[in-house]
């Protein structure tokens, strides 16, 4: 391995950074390759039957319109919020940022459970007010439960882009005779394109992979069908084909995104920033603005929390917190080790990408993201089939679950580590080298202390994701293994909303605490 790396460039990346990255890439690629081989194993006649099922078309159409619907909901919420926080003098803007970020703590399936538990004759609304609107389910139920959960990804990207844009550009456009609408469409919007694409990509990938919310809402998509085929019909071949089709779909989305992004190279030209002068005073428009912000907060955070709490009080024979605690322990035994392993894997990958940006390291880095882009049920299926066939010793064991979770969510921790690494100049490492340190010693004595905060944030993000994780746990967990997420979904799926409530509440409290902590940290730095 080191040899071909050397042929790419003279300054060779140290093997102790290349090796973990290469292992991560291999660990993802091999099971996926096996999944593809498995699928291709089908006989010609059977294959034709599988591929030309009308059901595939329905699944495709459903998945596509779910993606579009969720993106629309996210855009309608995220655009105004981002604009308000980045471009106006609205007081308490950090509160608006909170409103834009906190929903990340409420996973799609909890949102779906809350929406299901809200309407209907026995729903929370009926209990509070006596008014029983029909229960939201199916397509619109899935769209809202996922949209309200994922819009923060778009919001954060838009906000950063808006804040980084030079307000003088909009002034320049106006001095050249463009009105405010023309300025928005010709100057502002084109520059937001990378942010829109990046946010939409994350959301799109999430929708393709989501299983919990769509299953609760009884809306059939590829992910949901994979689960049904594998876990209920035990048809591994058709399940593999569905996973393969979903992978192709995902690949198409990635290619499309890359093509759209290719011609937008945005460099801020010049260095001026007028800061506060560019911010708009809202005046009386602040009232509708706060009304909008309040509605978003109500729908995305208050309603689910209130619904869950109200179901908690309906618990038939008193809440059995003992069960909830044991499920919490299950969640923790998976998410804590997964978070640390992910952090340990992400560090060398981020380091390679920042310090040795060559084509070969970029390939390694990309393949580390592969697991993240792969829809979780497809990934889980690949690992299940692979370990069942080749590594029966770890098939359906806790270490496998932890390993796959770490592999998939590691990508989330690369970002914060990378930003921290950019702050640590290579000159510092060189200084340490001239003072007698080996490369490894220089890394641990000089660089590591500087990135340890970024590492902490990255690890926390992975912890949070694995806590909320559902589909991987479904296929990979050992028999009888319980987590908060599993129990919420299982009870909600049986319409036992009261029974699901304590698990959901516990999950929300932990998630909200963590998201709040991360936000607070960002604000204080």
């Amino acid at each position, binding site marked *: 391995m080191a040899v071909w790396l050397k042929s790419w460039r003279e300054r060779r990346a140290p093997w102790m950074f290349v090796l973990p990255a290469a292992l991560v890439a291999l660990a993802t690629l091999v099971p996926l390759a096996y999944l593809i081989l498995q699928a291709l194993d089908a006989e010609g006649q059977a294959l034709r039957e599988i591929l030309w099922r009308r059901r595939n078309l329905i699944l495709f159409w459903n998945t596509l319109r779910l993606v579009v619907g969720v993106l629309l909901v996210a855009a309608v919420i995220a655009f105004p919020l981002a604009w308000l926080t980045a471009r106006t003098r609205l007081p308490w803007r950090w509160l608006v940022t909170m409103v834009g970020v906190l929903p990340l703590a409420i996973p799609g399936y909890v949102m779906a459970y809350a929406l299901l538990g809200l309407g209907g004759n026995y729903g929370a609304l009926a209990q509070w007010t006596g008014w029983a609107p029909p229960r939201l389910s199916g397509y619109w139920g899935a769209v809202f439960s996922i949209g309200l959960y994922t819009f923060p990804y778009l919001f954060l990207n838009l906000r950063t882009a808006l804040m980084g844009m030079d307000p003088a*550009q909009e002034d320049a456009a106006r*001095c050249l005779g463009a009105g405010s609408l023309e300025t928005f469409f010709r100057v502002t919007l084109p520059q937001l394109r990378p942010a829109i694409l990046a946010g939409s990509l994350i959301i799109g990938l999430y929708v393709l992979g989501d299983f919990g919310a769509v299953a609760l809402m009884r809306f059939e998509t590829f992910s949901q069908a994979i689960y049904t085929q594998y876990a209920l019909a035990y048809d591994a071949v058709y399940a593999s084909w569905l996973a393969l089709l979903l992978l192709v779909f995902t690949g198409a989305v990635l290619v499309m995104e890359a093509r759209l992004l290719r011609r937008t190279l945005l460099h801020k*030209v010049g260095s*001026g920033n007028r800061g506060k002068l560019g911010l708009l005073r809202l005046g009386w428009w602040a009232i509708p603005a706060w009304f909008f912000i309040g509605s978003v907060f109500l729908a995305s955070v208050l309603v689910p929390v209130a619904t869950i709490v109200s179901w908690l009080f309906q618990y038939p024979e008193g809440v059995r917190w003992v069960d909830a605690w044991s499920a919490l322990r299950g969640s923790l035994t998976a998410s804590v080790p997964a978070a640390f392993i992910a952090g340990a894997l992400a560090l060398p990958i981020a380091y390679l990408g920042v310090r040795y940006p060559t084509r070969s390291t970029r390939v390694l880095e990309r393949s580390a993201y592969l697991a993240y882009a792969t829809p979780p049920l497809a990934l889980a299926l690949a690992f299940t089939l692979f370990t069942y066939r080749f590594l029966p010793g770890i098939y359906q064991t806790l270490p496998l679950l932890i390993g796959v979770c770490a592999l998939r969510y590691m990508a989330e921790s690369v970002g914060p580590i990378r930003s921290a690494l950019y702050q640590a100049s290579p000159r510092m490492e060189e200084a340490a080298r001239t003072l007698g340190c080996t490369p490894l010693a220089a890394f641990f004595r000089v660089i590591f202390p500087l990135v340890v905060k970024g590492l902490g944030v990255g690890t926390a993000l992975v912890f949070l994701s694995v806590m909320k994780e559902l589909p991987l746990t479904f296929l990979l967990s050992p028999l009888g293994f319980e987590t908060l997420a599993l129990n919420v979904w299982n009870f909600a799926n049986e319409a036992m909303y009261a029974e699901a409530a304590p698990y959901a509440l516990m999950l929300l409290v932990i998630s909200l605490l963590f998201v709040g902590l991360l936000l607070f940290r960002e604000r204080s730095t």
Partner: protein
Amino acid sequence: MMAPLLEVNNLTKRFDRRLPPVVNDVSFAIEPGEIFALLGPSGCGKTTSLRMVAGLESVDSGRIRMGGILLEGNGKPVPAENRGIGFVFQDYALFPHMTVNRNVGFGLRRLPRDERRRKVRRALDLVGLKASAEAMPFELSGGQQQRVALARALVAEPKLILLDEPFSNLDAVLRETTRVEVRNLLKSTGMTTLLVTHDQEEALSFADRLVVMNEGRIEQTGTPEEVYNRPRTAFVSRFLGRTNLIDGEARGCMAETVLGRIRLDRTIWGRVLVSLRPEHLTLRPWDERANRPPGVIVGRAFKGHDITYRIRFPDREWLVHTDNRTQFQTGDRALLAALEPGVVLDDPPDSVAVSTPPEPAEIAAGA
């Protein structure tokens, strides 16, 4: 005399009610074809004034009139996009997602394509960037970006062009040559120009006339020579280069000062504050017969074509520029003499601390 192209009357702007106005009762007029500068330290309100002329900042009170059209002052400000005023921003504000060609053509969207192309090509030719037409802004150097910004503003054929610290992002070598080029370009097109800068040398060499601003107010208006040679206030005399301020008792066109009797630039009686530039002073050898005590040379900086001395008297230090033929050394005793009449300032004599002239940088930072 032609009617002025731009007339600004009693312009006032306040950002915070608890603070004094950022722009306070500012008035000036610019003739067609003139290059006019607003000069002042940072925070003096010059950029805000410029932005109000462009229509990018709202006006609290006052009037702005261009070519007989009222832009501000009747409660219905003309929006920036309808003013026909070009603006070159300090950081150029090029659109990073457009090529040089499309940046320059941005304001010409309503023209037919052929005409637009022709105009863009001519504008790029004018600034010497025809070869970079298809480049993206980030591929250009700072100086080239600046010229694109200029071409983009010029191509729309504005009546007036505004330059906001246009040379401050260029390095020192490039700044001087670019300044000359841009000035020649503006003069050859007959463009009326309003420039904002904190660099006194830039304002003096670039502008036909200029306004010196301080804390939102106009201190003085005039040609570079007038403002430099006959500053009206201590602030102006210090901001435009170094000066020695002295008290004196004026009797007509002469005044009694610590330097003895010196000539004044105008006739006045009573106590006055007088400015004497270092180059308007010289040193004379001291001997026992002189009726005044000598000063001691405490600093000497040889700069090639001239020498700067610091000379200490019991009460204060003085700054003197002489040609390189004077031969005093540190520690020598010498007398001061004025070569030119002292400039009588409007400030009352006791309002300004009469002391060693500080470096211009210190004034800018302190103001």
